Structures are given as structure tokens and as C-alpha cells.
């Protein structure tokens, strides 16, 4: 009997569960069964009189009310799925609309994601494969005026041994190009000298063998352990599993490979992928310049600080300042010096900050493209909302709340944006390799390896959500604001249709026109700048030839042997067939990374107070002017007789001669470089030395034999196509010394492209995006004009009936389109002027108000806009007045 009643109660629950909404059904049933069973038991154990337990039956009926309440309550949640389904159906039913909107958004989102992934790969993921990368900060040396200095080894040791409690450990390293000798041709590889605690502190693990530890970094010049990177192991040793224990020759010293790093680790230089790591103690052997390890005055180490978990950079900075103070008062070399901590991505000495500028421009451009895309989709949505005015009005009449309708329209927008976002991710994946065009052509193992990782995906989602708000909200609000009665009337039938939606659409078109014009003008400026950079006379006429770098120091040459090598190399190369001339330069003009300079005194010239005579210089071998094609205005070229046993001589350029020898003959004049007097034997024509954009500067050529250094660039002038000379060049070098590789070989033509790299890159980027923006704006303009023309159909019909000609109607509609374009152009020109000032430093040979760029792009835009307005205008003029007025 008792159990029958309990069973009845549970049967009510079982039957009633169909009332509960599906999403909450299980939970509802579980809760009620448990409570009823419990209550039943309790009342059985504590009887309170006849019928007590029976009173549970009406209580159980309350469960049904609960279930029903849940159904009403949970409904609002379930409406979202209903909206999604409805939105999806709409998308599928209008494939053209959907395709345009999705592709537009995909383009905008994709551009942002692509560029963010580049920024991310270089700046954010600087320490790849390092577990606690966010605890590392860069430590730069500072003086009163500079904050981008490196440190000396003794200073590093002092900072490390006295490190405060906020600092976990400090590591130091130095970038070191090396010559590798295994079998076959010698090879240029890139590595780092690292302190013994480098790998332990970074927390990098080996994939094979072991990594360098403190015990590998004890004896100066006596260590033999080296670690190679995973990529280098794969590339050079074909992933040989028996690599550990192999010996290699680096810069003429035998090393043993003790291990291979984990694949993700690339070293600690931003944007570079390194090959090999050797102990700091091998400094003298690896980078020469004698023993630096005991010289406090020689700064050459990059330093990273690993903070204790939870320690702030500010605190570590204050703690380290105390140490700098005591070092500065102890050692004269450290007087006036301090240290500054920086986040890795903006450390002035790390090289990352140089790229931040270009990345910033790219990111901004991508944002503008996304804004244009959003404006375009908003426009499309408003147009569609206008078409759905009747539907909206009917739903409002039938009792739908405005919030409900906004929610539905926003759901539709979100759906569009999600598909657009997915499209954008695909776009970003597809354009992943485009990044190669943006890598400057430098002789370094640059690696920008964008990947669609978690951060990039998060960014994509954020951008997508932001664009939903940007393009979805206005149409949704505006679409539901139309009044019921107006909506139910035949919207197109009245002479005075509501203009509110039209206003917003016109404002969006104006914004689009303005933004595309900004991009186009900027692109025009950069392209003009590129044309200038390519056309500008670099000061030398050599055009067909080969450049190749060589470095004698790693091969163990001293100055005497090096000079002999240079001499022999030049005489052999000049003998090669197809070679018209050859010389050596310390640095090729217009390379990345500036040029060297001397502070000099010039006999017969009295400097003004505080005037420093700062002269750029280059080391050049014999026949330099002849080979490079630099006109000599007076005197002679550098020759083979300008050796160290002869008096120091030099060739100056026109600007130096004019500025410091006004009215005197510069030939025979003396320039004092430190204690060395250099006698001027020639005057050469001016040229560009560091940057294509520089103004004329005083310049001094000195003989490479007299100012010996182990590194130089071999310049070979060829009769025609330089390609056939390449192999003989290698052979000629190898026949002198098989340990000296020629690296970074390129033609003169390729080298000249470096000079205009920045302009080319930004011009291409802005140009591509500008064209996309123009296309989007054109589509937007066309859509709006067409909608306006359709809205004004009855009015136009009336005008035609009253005698207006086709020309009148066309000009009526065109005027409306041009009005919008006019406002957009005015805003866009103002914006472009502002933008041009921002990147003034990157523009060469073109003013920020260059009339061709501004007027040309404006004319282009207006022409396109005219075409976009003309089509709907002509259609409007073809309206049959009888048909148009029939509904009035």
C-alpha cells in the first residue's frame, strides 16, 4: 500500500517529465524523484498522523507546475537556436548576398589575422621553445644619453654573482657567424657564444645527447663542446641519429657535438633561426679581437634576465640599479653606466624595435581594411533590412518585442561573421607564405614562421566579435525602429519614403570612400617613392656584376696573411674569363645596417666651437673607382701600391672637398684619423652610402691594405650575365684556401633592390589593400545609389511625366552619388595628409603632399565612383512613368 503510493508519486514525475523542456528534463526528474523519495522515507520514519503521506500527492502536482515554468523560462535560451536556424536558412536562400558579405568579412578579418600572426611570430614568440618565456626580460646597458648598449663579460659576471632576490638568473650570449668545415665546401653558419648557465636557465631540453652546462664553460680557449639546433641537424646532417660525438671544425677549431636542441628552440635572437651554440670561453677563437673575457671596457654581450616567479620588472630594475651604482664607483670603465630592463619585444638593443614600426603600419592598414569591410557589410544588411520591413512590421504587430527582433538580427550577423571569420582564418593560412616578400634581404638566417596558434585564434575571435558589433548593431537597431504603420504601408509606394535608413547608408559610404582614398593615397606615395628609389643615382654605375662576402678571421688569418690573401684573390679573380674588373670593399654601399664613421681633424680647416668632423668611410681595394664606376674628378684611384709600408692615403668625395677645402686644392691635403695622417690623393663624385634617402655627406675611401680587417665584400664586374662567373669565383677562392667560404652571393641588381626594400614592401601592401578597399567602396556606392534610385522611383516617374528628360534624371541621381563621394574625398584627403606625416621618414624623394599621388588617386576614385553611380542612374532614367505612378 505504502509503496503503491510512492510508486504513484514517481509515476506522476515520470509522466510529467514531458512537460519539462528537453534541456532541463533529466535534471528536473532527478531532483523531484530524490526529493519525493527522501520526503516519503522521512514521513514514514516520523509519522505525523493520517493522510500526512497522502498530502505528498498534491505536492507532486507542483512538480508539473515547476516543469511548465521551466518550459516558459528556458524558452528564451532555446530561441537562440531557433534564430540560428532561421539565420542559416536566410543565408542559404540568398547565396549571392551571403557570398559577398562573407568574402568581404573574410578579407578584412583575414588581413588582420595574417599580420597579427607575423607580429606574433616575431615579437611575442621571441623565445620559442622556452617554457617560462614570460619571465625573461632584456637587460641593456645605459649611459646618460643611450639605452641600447650591450655589456662586458666582467660586468655580466658581477651582475650575475650579486643578483638580487627578484632575479632568478642572468644569461649572456653573443651572435657569432662562423665557418663550418665538415666534408666538402666550407659553409657559413650562424650561432651564439653562450654562458654555461644559458640552457639551464632557459629550460630548453635536448632532443638528443645533452646541452651545454656550467662545466662546459670553464677553460678559456680550451672547451670543445658544441650544441646544434634541430633544424641544422636535419638540414646539414640529414638527421643522422649518431650525431652526438661527431666532431666538427668551427672557425678552424675542433668541437664535439654533444647534443641537439628541442625542435621548437631557435636561439635568442629575434626573427633568426640559429644553427650552433658554443661556450663563451671560446670567444677568442670564435670572434677574435683577442681575449675579451677579462676586459671590462669592451661591451659585446646581449643579456637576458630571468625574473623570479611573481617578481615585477620594476622591482628587479631597482635592485639592479643598486648593483650598477656600486660597479660604477668601483671600476672607472663603468663610471656613468647603468642598466635598464625592457620587455623582450621592445628592447632597443635586441633589434626587435626596428621592426615594430613597419609592423605597426601593417597592422593599422589591416584595421582600416576591416573597417571598410564592416561598413560594406553593414550597408548590405541595412539594404536587406529595408527589404524585410514588412516582415518586421508584421512581427511587431503580432507582439514580438523589439529586443527580440534585435536579438534575431544580431544572431544573423553573428552567423555571417562566424562564417566570415572562418573564411578569414583560411585566408590567413593561405597567405602564410606571403611573409617572405616582407623579409629584408640580409645575409642572416631570418625566419618568420607564422603559425595559427592559440593566440592568433583568440585574436581572430576577438576581431570577429568586434566586427559583429561594428557591422551588425546599427542595422539591427535601425531595422527594428521603423514604425508599424509605415512598415505595413506599401513602402515603395509613397512619394516621400523614409530617409533615415538612407542617411546611415550614405554615411557608411562616405566613410568607405574616405578610408579607401587614405589607403590609395598612401600607396601612391610609397609607389612614387619606390620609383624614385629605383631611379635615383646611387653614385656608382656598376650594374652587371656579382657581390660575395668573405671573412678571413674565422679561418685563422692574421693581418699579414690576410693582406696577402686579398691581393692574391683579386689577381686571380681579375684573370677569370668574363670578368672586367674586381675590387674589395669593407661594406657595399646601400646595405642594411649603415656605414662606419671616423671622427677626424682636417689640416687647414678650423672647426667651429663644438663642431665635430664626422666622416663616413669605406675600406676599398685597388681599382675601386674603376670597378664600381665612380667618376674621379681629380687625382687617382686606390692602387696596389698603397700598402702598409707606404704613407696612408685616401680618396675623398666632392662634398668633403667642398666643405673642408673651400678654395684650396684638396689633393695633397691631410685628414687626421686619430694619430694617422691620411693624405688625399683623389676626389670622387658624390654617391649614396647608407640610405637612398640621405643628403650628400662627406666621405672618405681608405685602402683596405692599409686599414686591414678580416671581413670584406668582393665586387666583381662582369661583361654581361654574371651567372657563369659564380662557379669560377668559388673555385678561385677555394684554390687559395679551402677553409674560406664565399657567402651571401648576389648580383648587383639584387643588391640595389635592398635599397628600396622598405618602399617596395609598404607600397605593395598599401597598394594591394587600397585596390581591395576601392573595390569594396565601389560595391557599397553602387548598392546605395541603386537603393536610392529605387526608393525615388515614383518621384522620378512623376518628374518624367512632367517633362523631365533622361539627361535630367541621370544628372539628378549622379549628383546625389557625387555628393557622397565629394564628402568622402574631402575627409579622405584630410586623413591621408595626417597618415603621410606619420610615415614621413619612410618616404624618399617624394613630399608628404605630393600632388601626383593625391590628385591621381582622387581622380581614379572619382572616375570609379562615377561609373558606380551611372549604372543605376541610367536605369532610373529608363523608368516608365505610367508603371511608376500606377500605385499612387
Amino acid at each position, binding site marked *: 500500500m505504502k509503496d503503491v503510493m510512492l510508486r504513484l508519486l514517481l509515476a506522476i514525475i515520470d509522466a510529467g517529465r514531458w512537460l519539462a523542456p528537453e534541456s532541463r528534463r533529466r*535534471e528536473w526528474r*532527478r*531532483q*523531484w*524523484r*530524490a*526529493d519525493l*523519495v*527522501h*520526503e516519503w*522515507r522521512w514521513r514514514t520514519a516520523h509519522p505525523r498522523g493520517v493522510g500526512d503521506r497522502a498530502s505528498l500527492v*498534491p*505536492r*507532486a*502536482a*507542483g*512538480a*508539473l*507546475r*515547476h516543469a511548465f*515554468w*521551466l518550459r516558459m*523560462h528556458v524558452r528564451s535560451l532555446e530561441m537562440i537556436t531557433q534564430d540560428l536556424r532561421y539565420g542559416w536558412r536566410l543565408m542559404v536562400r540568398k547565396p549571392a548576398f551571403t557570398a559577398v558579405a562573407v568574402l568581404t568579412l573574410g578579407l578584412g578579418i583575414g588581413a588582420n589575422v595574417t599580420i597579427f600572426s607575423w607580429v606574433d611570430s616575431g615579437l611575442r614568440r621571441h623565445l620559442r621553445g622556452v617554457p617560462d618565456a614570460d619571465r625573461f626580460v632584456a637587460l641593456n646597458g645605459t649611459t646618460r644619453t643611450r639605452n641600447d648598449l650591450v655589456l662586458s663579460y666582467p660586468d655580466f659576471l658581477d651582475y650575475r654573482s650579486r643578483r638580487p632576490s627578484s632575479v632568478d638568473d642572468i644569461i649572456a650570449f653573443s651572435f657569432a657567424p662562423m665557418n663550418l668545415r665538415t666534408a666538402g665546401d666550407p659553409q657559413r653558419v650562424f650561432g651564439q657564444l653562450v654562458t654555461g648557465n644559458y640552457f639551464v636557465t632557459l629550460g630548453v631540453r635536448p632532443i638528443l645527447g645533452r646541452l651545454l652546462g656550467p662545466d662546459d664553460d670553464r677553460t678559456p680557449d680550451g672547451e670543445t663542446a658544441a650544441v646544434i639546433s634541430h633544424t641544422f641537424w636535419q638540414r646539414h646532417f640529414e638527421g643522422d641519429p649518431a650525431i652526438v660525438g661527431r666532431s666538427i671544425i668551427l672557425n678552424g677549431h675542433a668541437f664535439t657535438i654533444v647534443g641537439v636542441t628541442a625542435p621548437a628552440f631557435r636561439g635568442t635572437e629575434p626573427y633568426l633561426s640559429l644553427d650552433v651554440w658554443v661556450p663563451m670561453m671560446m670567444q677568442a677563437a670564435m670572434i677574435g679581437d683577442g681575449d675579451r673575457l677579462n676586459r671590462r671596457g669592451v661591451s659585446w654581450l646581449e643579456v637576458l634576465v630571468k625574473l623570479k616567479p611573481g617578481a615585477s620588472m620594476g622591482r628587479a630594475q631597482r635592485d639592479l640599479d643598486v648593483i650598477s651604482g656600486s660597479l660604477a664607483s668601483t671600476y672607472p670603465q663603468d663610471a656613468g653606466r647603468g642598466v635598464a630592463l625592457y620587455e623582450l619585444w621592445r628592447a632597443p638593443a635586441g633589434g626587435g624595435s626596428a621592426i615594430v614600426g613597419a609592423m605597426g603600419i601593417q597592422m593599422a592598414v589591416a584595421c582600416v581594411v576591416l573597417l571598410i569591410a564592416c561598413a560594406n557589410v553593414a550597408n548590405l544588411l541595412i539594404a536587406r533590412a529595408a527589404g524585410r520591413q514588412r516582415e518586421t512590421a508584421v512581427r511587431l504587430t503580432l507582439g514580438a518585442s523589439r529586443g527580440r527582433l534585435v536579438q534575431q538580427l544580431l544572431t544573423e550577423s553573428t552567423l555571417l561573421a562566424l562564417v566570415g571569420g572562418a573564411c578569414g582564418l583560411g585566408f590567413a593560412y593561405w597567405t602564410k607564405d606571403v611573409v617572405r616578400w616582407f623579409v629584408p634581404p640580409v645575409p642572416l638566417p631570418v625566419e618568420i614562421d607564422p603559425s595559427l596558434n592559440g593566440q592568433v585564434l583568440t585574436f581572430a575571435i576577438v576581431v570577429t566579435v568586434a566586427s559583429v558589433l561594428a557591422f551588425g548593431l546599427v542595422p539591427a537597431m535601425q531595422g527594428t525602429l521603423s514604425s508599424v504603420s509605415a512598415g505595413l504601408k506599401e513602402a515603395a509606394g509613397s512619394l516621400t519614403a523614409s530617409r533615415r535608413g538612407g542617411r546611415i547608408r550614405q554615411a557608411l559610404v562616405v566613410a568607405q570612400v574616405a578610408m579607401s582614398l587614405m589607403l590609395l593615397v598612401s600607396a601612391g606615395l610609397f609607389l612614387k617613392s619606390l620609383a624614385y628609389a629605383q631611379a635615383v643615382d646611387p653614385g656608382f654605375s656598376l650594374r652587371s656584376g656579382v657581390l660575395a662576402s668573405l671573412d678571413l678571421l674565422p679561418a685563422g688569418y692574421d693581418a699579414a696573411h690576410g693582406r696577402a690573401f686579398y691581393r692574391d684573390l683579386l689577381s686571380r679573380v681579375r684573370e677569370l674569363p668574363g670578368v672586367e674588373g674586381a675590387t674589395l670593399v669593407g661594406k657595399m654601399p646601400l646595405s642594411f645596417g649603415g656605414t662606419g664613421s671616423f671622427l677626424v681633424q682636417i689640416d687647414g680647416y678650423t672647426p667651429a666651437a663644438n663642431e665635430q668632423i664626422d666622416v663616413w668611410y669605406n675600406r676599398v681595394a685597388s681599382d675601386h673607382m674603376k670597378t664600381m664606376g665612380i667618376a674621379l674628378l681629380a687625382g687617382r684611384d686606390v692602387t696596389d701600391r698603397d700598402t702598409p709600408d707606404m704613407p696612408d692615403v685616401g680618396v675623398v668625395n666632392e662634398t668633403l672637398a667642398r666643405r673642408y677645402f673651400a678654395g684650396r686644392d684638396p689633393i695633397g691635403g691631410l685628414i687626421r684619423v686619430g694619430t694617422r695622417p691620411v693624405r688625399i690623393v683623389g676626389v670622387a663624385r658624390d654617391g649614396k652610402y647608407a640610405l637612398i634617402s640621405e643628403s650628400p655627406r662627406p666621405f672618405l675611401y681608405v685602402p683596405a691594405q692599409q686599414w686591414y680587417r678580416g671581413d670584406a665584400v668582393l665586387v666583381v664586374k662582369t661583361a654581361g650575365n654574371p651567372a657563369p662567373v659564380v662557379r669560377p669565383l668559388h673555385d678561385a677562392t677555394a684554390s687559395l684556401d679551402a677553409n674560406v667560404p664565399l657567402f651571401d652571393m648576389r648580383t648587383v641588381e639584387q643588391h640595389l633592390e635592398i635599397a628600396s626594400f622598405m618602399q617596395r614592401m609598404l607600397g605593395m601592401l598599401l597598394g594591394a589593400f587600397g585596390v581591395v578597399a576601392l573595390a569594396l567602396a565601389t560595391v557599397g556606392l553602387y548598392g546605395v545609389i541603386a537603393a536610392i534610385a529605387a526608393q525615388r522611383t515614383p518621384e522620378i516617374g512623376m518628374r518624367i511625366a512632367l517633362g523631365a528628360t533622361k539627361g535630367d534624371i541621370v544628372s539628378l541621381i549622379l549628383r546625389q552619388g557625387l555628393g557622397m563621394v565629394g564628402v568622402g574625398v574631402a575627409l579622405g584627403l584630410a586623413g591621408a595628409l595626417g597618415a603621410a606625416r606619420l610615415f614621413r621618414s619612410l618616404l624618399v624623394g617624394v613630399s608628404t603632399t605630393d600632388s601626383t599621388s593625391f590628385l591621381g588617386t582622387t581622380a581614379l576614385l572619382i572616375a570609379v565612383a562615377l561609373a558606380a553611380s551611372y549604372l543605376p542612374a541610367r536605369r532610373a532614367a529608363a523608368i516608365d512613368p505610367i508603371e511608376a505612378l500606377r500605385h499612387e
Partner: protein
Amino acid sequence: MPRPAPLAFGHVSILHAIAAGNRFGFDIMEATGLTSGTVYPALDKLESLGYLASHWEDARVARRDKRPPRRYFDLTSAGAHALASALQRYKNLKPVSLAAWKIRPSEA
């Protein structure tokens, strides 16, 4: 997000009952005198407002007692605040004379 409207008396009395240590649907019904059809939806509503937190009883405890695990409710700190301000609201009601309806204060 708009401020939630002041709680209805039923909701206040449910919060009050939970604060007093009643943590299951039927106990709360006993304590408040409300019907199950009121209490259960109210519990869900209060939970969605963030005033209550519910969780299922530890299954091992329930199994030991040979019964299904129950869903029980706790006051959140937001719930405690809402309860305190509601009680303050009721406390602030001044006594009024109901003599016109022939009710003496002692009968109220």
C-alpha cells in the same frame, strides 16, 4: 545590465528559509508554507539571479543511505546581501492603524 527588481515576498521568505538552514525543496516548503509549484520554480529563478547556488549531494553519501542524491541549495553572498536589504525593507514598514477595518494591532 539593469539592477534586478526588488524581490517578491515569496522569494524573500525562501532566501530566509535557506539562510535558516533549510536546504532542500520540501524543507523550504515546510518552513515557508509555500506550495511546491511556487518553491521549485522560485529556487531555479533565484539560482539564475545568482542568489543561490545548488549542487548535487555527494553520490557516496546518498548510496550509503540507500536513496538517490538530492539537489541542495546554498545562499551565495549576493543572496545574503539581497536578503539583508529585503529584510531591512520590511523592517522599515511603519506600523499603521487598521482601526477603520476594525482590526486591532494584536490581531494582525
